[in-house]
Each structure stands twice: as C-alpha cells, then as structure tokens.
C-alpha cells in the first residue's frame, strides 16, 4: 500500500507526495503531459529533442547538472509517445535544490542557437546509434506506420525522419515550450524521506510563482478501425529472419486493458510462456520470441516479436504463431496457468515498489490517468481478470483483420 497526499497549486501544478522514511534519499518525478503524439506530422521528434534542450541551462542556472551534482544528486529523463518525464534523486537534506532546479527551467529554459544546433547533432547521432546502425534497429520505425494510418502513434519518439530534427528552428522550440511546458500541464511527484507538508510548502514556494500559461488543446485524430490484414516485407543484411506482429487494443483506461496485459504474460511472461514452450522448446522454429503491450494512454498495440532459427520458413513461423493465438480463443486458460501469471505480476509489483523512483513515476503516471490510487489497485485489477475475459478479449481483438505483420528478412545467401 502506497499512501500519498495530493495538492494543487493555483497555477494548476498537481503535486503528490509519498513518504518513505527507510531511505536517506528523496526522489522527484516531474511529468509533462506532452509526448510525440502531440507533434505536428511535419516536425516529428521535437518532443524528444526538446527534452535535450531542457538541459541547456537557464539565465540564472547556466548548467543544470552542476548544482545538482554538488548537492549529491543524479537525474535523467525520457520521452515517450505520451509523456516527457524528468526524474532525479538526491540526499533528503538537499531536496530543496531539486525544487529550485526544476521550477527554474519550467519558468524559462535558456537554450540558444548554438545549443540547439549541438543537441540536433547529438539526437541525430542517437538516431543513428539506436535505430539505423543496429541490426533490426529500424523494425519499430517500419511497424508503427504499418499498424497506424492516422493516429500520431504512427511515428516513433525519435521522429519519422532525421530531416525533421534537422529542420527544427529556435522559434519552433520556443513555441513548443510555451504550448506544453505549463504548470497546469505538469505533475510533480515526490517520494522518499520528505514530509508531505514540507513538500507542499517547497512546491508552493518554488513553482507557485510560475505564471499560468494556456496549454495547447489536444485534438488527436482517432485511429480508424482496421478492417483488413496488413503485411510488409523488407530485406536487410542481418543474420536471421525476424517476425513482428501487432494487433490494436484498447486504451490504458479501457475495461480490457488488464486482460490484454495478462494475455501477453500468458504468451511470454517469464521463461514458461506459451510462445516459448511451443515455438522454441517444442517446435524449434524460433531462437527467441516475446510478447508485450505498449501500455499507451490512447489505444495501443499488442506486439509479438520473434527471431527465427536459421532455415525456418517465415510463413511457417507466422502460421505457428497464429496457432498459439487461436488456442487463446478456442480453449479457456487453466486455473493453474491463470494463477501463475497473477502471482508473477504481484511479485513484480512488490519488487518494483522497493524503489522510491519507481513509486514516484507510477504515482505521477496514475495522477495523469486521473487517480494516483490506481497504483494500489493494479494487483487487484490484474487478479480480477477471468478465463472468460481472456478468451473474449482474444476472440474480439486478436483477429487477422486487426493484425499487421512485418516480415523482416535476412538477405544473406545462407537463408535461401
């Protein structure tokens, strides 16, 4: 049970605090309700590039990291389709330094043309290092536009194309800041060795004077219902074929969300998942195979990714995956197997809550969903999924018409 207190500043900033006195540290998580889904289709990647720009210092704090390091702190950030999330930990005695630093850059970041140019090339190198210069690195870049025709989830956080990042101007960046980095668009979560009263007082002191700005309204095009199976085949210079399959699922708050979560655990949770047992252990078709949900706020994807053993025909492998999927629709999962994935979920939940940083992130994300109390209901919600719900969800959603498949083939001669 994670107990928490909430508070809202007049400028709209939401603050959540959970005290854990077993640690000498405080964790701060500052979530901005902006991700790559909020980008203009001609300027994709700007949300993530902007995360880099937030580290370029401000008028009063020329270097963000320096005072944090002097206070014994450490920080990082990530951008997803839905959110941009900044987090730090530091010794509890120096917690105020975190408030000072984060409020200062929410007030006014200090990037310049030179700094923008440097970060554009850093992000370009990141694009190359993570997506272009890695075997299978561009698979998700291909899969998203295959699965989504309309919704902005069709492009990845890094951006659709390097040229979009290269084209970002200082004005674009300023505009992005003013439209999205408003106190009312942010959630501040604090966990660790700090009294809630103290945290609220510091939040009011440091964030309270930041003027309210109008956030840009979010109008996202809904993804039309997919009615036909989609397939894409590419060839690359890679050692073995890979298979990627996705199906559209409900949103994070939809009633089937936990059934989807449980369903992918049945398929690939731990070393005893069905896909592994059937297709790696029994049939020797894949060397490894995985399944997961993207956990996006808007309707996301169920994803299966597998690497084929050399010599396995891609269509045979695809058929074999479909057989495992069909089994979910044809037969109720046993009580033992259902209990297995539920126990595993509960165990991982307890383990994750041993970290104050995880707790801070989870609280902030659940507040964004409308209720931080969701963190305490996750295990019960997961446990409430029945065998019938799994079967119904699979039958309704895991259909060929709702599926996109990417055949990512090795061009190597040995494969032929």
């Amino acid at each position, binding site marked *: 049970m994670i107990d928490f207190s909430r508070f809202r500043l007049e400028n709209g900033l939401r603050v959540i605090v959970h005290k*854990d006195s*077993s*640690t*000498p540290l405080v964790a701060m998580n500052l979530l901005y309700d902006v991700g790559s889904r909020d980008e203009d289709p001609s300027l994709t990647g700007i949300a993530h590039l902007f995360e880099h720009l937030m580290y370029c210092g401000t008028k*009063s704090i020329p*270097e963000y*990291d*320096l*005072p944090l*390091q*002097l*206070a*014994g702190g450490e920080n990082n950030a990530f951008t997803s389709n839905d959110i941009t999330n900044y987090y730090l*930990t530091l*010794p509890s*005695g*120096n917690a*105020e*330094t975190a408030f*000072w630093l984060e409020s200062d850059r929410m007030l006014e970041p200090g990037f310049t043309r030179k700094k923008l140019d*440097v*970060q554009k*090339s*850093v992000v*370009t*190198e990141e694009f*190359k*290092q993570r997506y*272009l*210069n890695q*075997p*299978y690195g561009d698979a998700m870049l291909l899969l998203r536009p295959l699965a989504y025709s309309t919704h902005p989830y069709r492009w990845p956080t890094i951006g659709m194309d390097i040229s979009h990042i290269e084209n970002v101007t200082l004005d674009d960046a300023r505009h992005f800041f003013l439209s999205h980095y408003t106190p009312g668009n942010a959630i501040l979560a604090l966990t660790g060795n700090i009294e809630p009263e103290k945290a609220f007082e510091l939040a009011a*002191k440091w964030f309270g*004077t930041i003027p309210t700005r109008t956030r840009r309204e979010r109008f996202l095009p809904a993804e039309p219902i997919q009615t036909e199976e989609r397939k894409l085949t590419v060839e690359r*210079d*890679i*050692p*073995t074929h890979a298979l990627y399959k996705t199906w559209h699922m409900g949103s994070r708050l939809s009633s089937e969300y936990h059934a989807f979560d449980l369903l992918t655990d049945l398929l690939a949770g*731990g*070393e*005893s998942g069905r896909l592994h*047992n059937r297709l*790696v*252990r029994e049939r020797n078709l894949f*060397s*490894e195979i995985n399944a997961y949900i993207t956990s996006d706020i808007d309707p996301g994807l169920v994803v299966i990714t597998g*690497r084929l*053993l050399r010599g396995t025909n891609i269509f045979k492998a695809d058929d074999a995956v479909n057989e495992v999927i069909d089994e979910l629709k044809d037969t109720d999962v046993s009580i033992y197997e259902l*209990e*297995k994935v539920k*126990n*595993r*979920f*509960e*165990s*991982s939940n*307890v*383990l994750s*809550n*041993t970290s104050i940083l995880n707790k801070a992130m989870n609280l902030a994300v659940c507040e964004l969903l409308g209720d931080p109390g969701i963190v305490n209901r996750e295990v019960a919600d997961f446990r409430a999924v029945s065998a019938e719900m799994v079967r119904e969800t699979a039958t309704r959603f895991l259909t060929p018409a709702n599926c996109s498949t990417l055949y990512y083939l090795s061009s190597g001669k040995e494969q032929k």
Partner: protein
Amino acid sequence: MTGFSRIQPPVYPFDARMDIPVRTLTLGNGTAVFIIEAGTEEIMRIEFVFRAGMIKEDLPLLATSANMMLTEGSQSYTAEELNGILDYYGIFLNMSAERDNAGLTVYFLNSHLEKVLELLVEILFRPLFPAKELGILMNKRLNWFRINREKVQNIAGDRFFESVFGSHHPYGRQVQEADFGVIIPSLLKDFHSKLYRPEKMTMIVSGKIPVSAADSFEKYFGGLRSMEVYTEESKARITGGPGKKFHIEKKGAIQTAIRIGSATITKRHPDYPGMKFLNVLLGGYFGSRLMKNIREDKGFTYGIHSSVSSYDLSGYFLVSTEVGRENAARAVDEIYRELQLLRSVPAGSNELEIVRNYMAGEMVRMFDGPFAIAESFKAVWEFGLDFNYFTGIMKTIRTITPDEVMELAKKYCNSEDFYQITAG
C-alpha cells in the same frame, strides 16, 4: 516574478551510512552466508556465488553455458516444469557468469522462502544438462553472436579485451562461430561438478528477513556435500597482444565505435580509489570532461564514457564511444588531448568539488536499501575486501588533491600504453 527572488537554496553536507551490520553464518557443510537485514517490503533477495566464471574454463562458452543451463532440467523436474514452477511462485531469477564468478540471484516474496530453497537445491546441485535444451540454448546464443558481430560497438569492444588481456586468456579470448558446436552435455557436467560445489558456495541474503530463515538455510543446504574432485588452477597468463592500433572495417556502418585504454591496477591496489576519482572526472558522469567536450560542445556523439574496472587478476581503463564516421578521427584526437591535459595540468578546485559531491551522492545511492547494499557488499567481498574499502573511497573523495590526480594520470594513463581500436 512576484515577491521572492530565486536564490539557490543552501547545500548541506551529507554522508553515506556505511556502518551497515553484515551478519555472518556458516552452515554445517561450510557454506558461508552473509545477511543484510533492511527494507520495508516482505521481499528477499539471495545471491548464490561460486568461483565458476570464465577464468575457470578451458573452452570458450563453457562457464556461461553451464550457468544458463542450470534451470533447464534437474533430477526432479523437466525444464518446462521447473520454469513453470518458478513463474507460479513469482520467483525472479537472474543467472550470471562473469569473468571470475558465476551464480544466480533470486528475488521472491518472503512467504515462498521454503519453496525457493527447495527449488534452488535442484537448480544449483542437481541439474542434468539435457542435450535437447542445450541445443536450444546454443541456437539462441549463436543467433545473438551473429547479431552482435554486426554491431560496431561489440566488434571494437571484443577486440579491445583481446588486445589488452591476450587472445588465449579467458579475460580476452574472443568467441568464434565454431566454438558453439563444441559444447556438449558431458563438458558442462564436468565443469559443474568441479565448480558448483555446496561447500564452496557463498550466499548473500538481503531484505526483510524472517527469523526462521537461518534454520531454513541449514535445512536445505547445510547437509549438502560434493564428491572430491581434482581441480587444476588455470595456467593462463595475461599478456597484451602485439600492436596497439587496429581498425576493423565494417561495411555499411554509419557510425564508428572507438575503444581506447589499457590494463590497469585491481581493486586491491591502494591507488585504485584515486583512479576511480580520476575516471569520474574524465568520463564517468554526465558533467565529465569527455561528455562536455565531445557531446555537449561538438555534438559528435550521443554518449562518451570512461571506466576503471577490476577483475580478480587485472583491472582495465577504457574510454568508449560511438561517433558519426566522418568525425571519428577528430574524436580520437580529442580523447588523446583530454588525456594529455589530465597528465599535464592540475584540475581546478571547483571541478574537483563537483566530482567529490557527485561521487559522495553515488555512495549514498550505493547504500540505499537492502538490495543496493547487498550488491555493494558483493563488489568488495569478491576481492577479499570489506566495507572498509568504501570508507577508503570516501576518504579519497573528500581529500584527493589536484596534484595527486595529475600524478595518477602520469602513472596510469600514458598514451604509449594504450590500445586504440576503431570499428566502422
């Protein structure tokens, strides 16, 4: 802004609490158990350590394969059953086989302690290494191997260790595609019976530990004994390879991986804490000289890091990065320039102050919570050291002078000792 000025809040001194009691227990058969009692959740972590790392293997892949096969079938359970039961009880298991040590770590809810120990006796001491499961594992590993051969960072990294430690030493030996066909069950059984012996096991237990735990450890492990087997000490010697500069051409690569460094002192050497300090300043944190110069000023890379690390027989010092092909030569020059600066100009006191506080903050994090403390404990225990090592690091962090850092650089960071590997 209204009403108040945004003046930087005061920074207060802080210190890691390193006076953590570690209880020691010896089971009836000699197994050493270290117990770190802390934490608020009803969850435990146990790490089982054996001297069964790569240093003990006569063939590549032996130590890692023996380790990864432990959960693939035992005297009482098939691989499928065993993995199913582990998942049913929500037991998280991380296998590990490194250069010197090997073993595994389990995380589980306290209520399952007895079940966990019963399963671990099977996993650690009664594995069967079935041929079918070994085939599946080797297929997977061969696939990983082929994929990694495509990555410039792996090509450069493997070549770096081969150059520094020698192509015949287990620390430096590169795996070849043909090695995968050599591993058969009997080799793994032999390796296992020699090195995974209950009397030679060490357990590091941490979390919120039930009072009855010590009795349970004795019940499941205290009576286990192994057969007398003859083991031979490794005769391999560390000798750096000939030649210092290598470029490995990788067709179609759009980035070049750079690895520059050398062998260095181990964790037991009195200069080691100072080298840890030097490393952070050079390339060990976000504000380091290398990051500032090569990422934040020039934008050549997404990241550049240096590390000072130690195995049992040798340490190593390494600068690593991936940069756009067109900037590779300039990046290499800049790395050497930073090293030259380190040897010739004492660092300013402001810069040292940042590194001091950053490292002190890291120490707080290394002692935050039972699992972090357990990892910190293992990191010194495996070198025959204790928490006094961290007290020594703290002292270095607080007191090292600019001249001392420069002297360390002169002693251990000479360009003529460095291997320089580029791939791309």
